[in-house]
């Protein structure tokens, strides 16, 4: 008798992985978090364009960084020509 609890034929032969990785919040990888100074933001969209996580929302006037996913790499802070993205300890975000 098989020792596995389920019936063997209940395992599908092939199941393509179709669920999005956005179910996997990566925000807890972060040690520092970005904060956008809305006053200084010029709306150039570079933070959005260069985000390796694709987690910057530019629908509104000022970009919004989704901290559920942001890993805190800091590329947005380096690239912001207006120097309006600041990286700081989590508590400060």
């Amino acid at each position: 008798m098989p020792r596995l609890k389920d019936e063997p034929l209940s395992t599908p032969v092939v199941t393509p992985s179709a669920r999005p990785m956005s179910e996997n919040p990566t925000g807890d990888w972060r040690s520092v978090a970005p904060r956008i100074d809305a006053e200084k933001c010029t709306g150039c969209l570079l933070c959005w364009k260069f985000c390796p996580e694709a987690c910057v929302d530019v629908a509104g006037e000022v970009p919004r960084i989704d901290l559920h996913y942001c890993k805190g790499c800091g590329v947005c802070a380096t690239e912001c020509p207006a120097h309006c993205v600041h990286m700081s300890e989590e508590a400060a975000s």
Partner: protein
Amino acid sequence: MKPSISVDELMTSGHQACQGCGATLTMRYALKGLGPETVVVLPACCWTIIAGAAPRCSIGVPLLHAPFAAAAAAASGVKAGLSARGDGRTTVMAWAGDGGTYDIGIQALSGAADRDEDIIYCCYDNEAYMNTGIQRSGGTPSGAWTMTTPGKEGSERPKKDLDAIMEAHRIPYIATATPAYPEDMVRKFAKAKTIKGFRFIHVLSPCPPGWKYDTADTVKLSRLAVQTGMFALYEIAEGRFKLNLNPAKRKPVGEYLKPQGRFRGLKPDAEAAIQAEVDARWALLSQRHARGT
């Protein structure tokens, strides 16, 4: 401000890449250029992990995982299979790292290019086996430290000139790109999509843990690679050569090398040799650009 590249994202957040990964920006831009009617074929590489474990996937197009040496061959088969089933539209793209391209995958790559398979092959080149923890590949530049070139002098061999090898296959389209120039990269993938036959895109893809620099500097280093002339942005379409960015005055290579811990052991004479190589290469590239072939 109006976005200069598509706002449609086919790469999802929540992927498994390291912080500041250049290869994720590359995939993001590539899929913006190609759109949803694309199948990606992935040999063993960093993206095997970045794509995510079952039952999830971090790109919104069909993806086939394949063995390390098999990217170009498996992609050839996907294209043939889709065509045999009446789908001649879908773009098939092999997506491999430098190890899977310069080294173990080069036989299948050469074969597919020689057959002029109707696929795009993108090598996202982070210049070592990064997924296994930084070992030297044929794409590792001279002087770079890796776990298998551990001495102070780093890799004793220069980077293999893969683009020249691909050009020798007389394929319809070759392009280079790097994430600091998203518009250029998106345009090249979009253009490749419209061309029939074997298309090769070589992307220099900075890697913070492998190159040993701050994760915030990925785009900066990508840009410095071009500004110093260490990496040239060009395309060769139907034999027509064109530099896409020809800096009037190139920055010294040291500006690109110094921020990277992998070049820490580089002696001044070795750096001078790299500068001389870059200068000589640019003389040739400029000639080709002027000639247009």
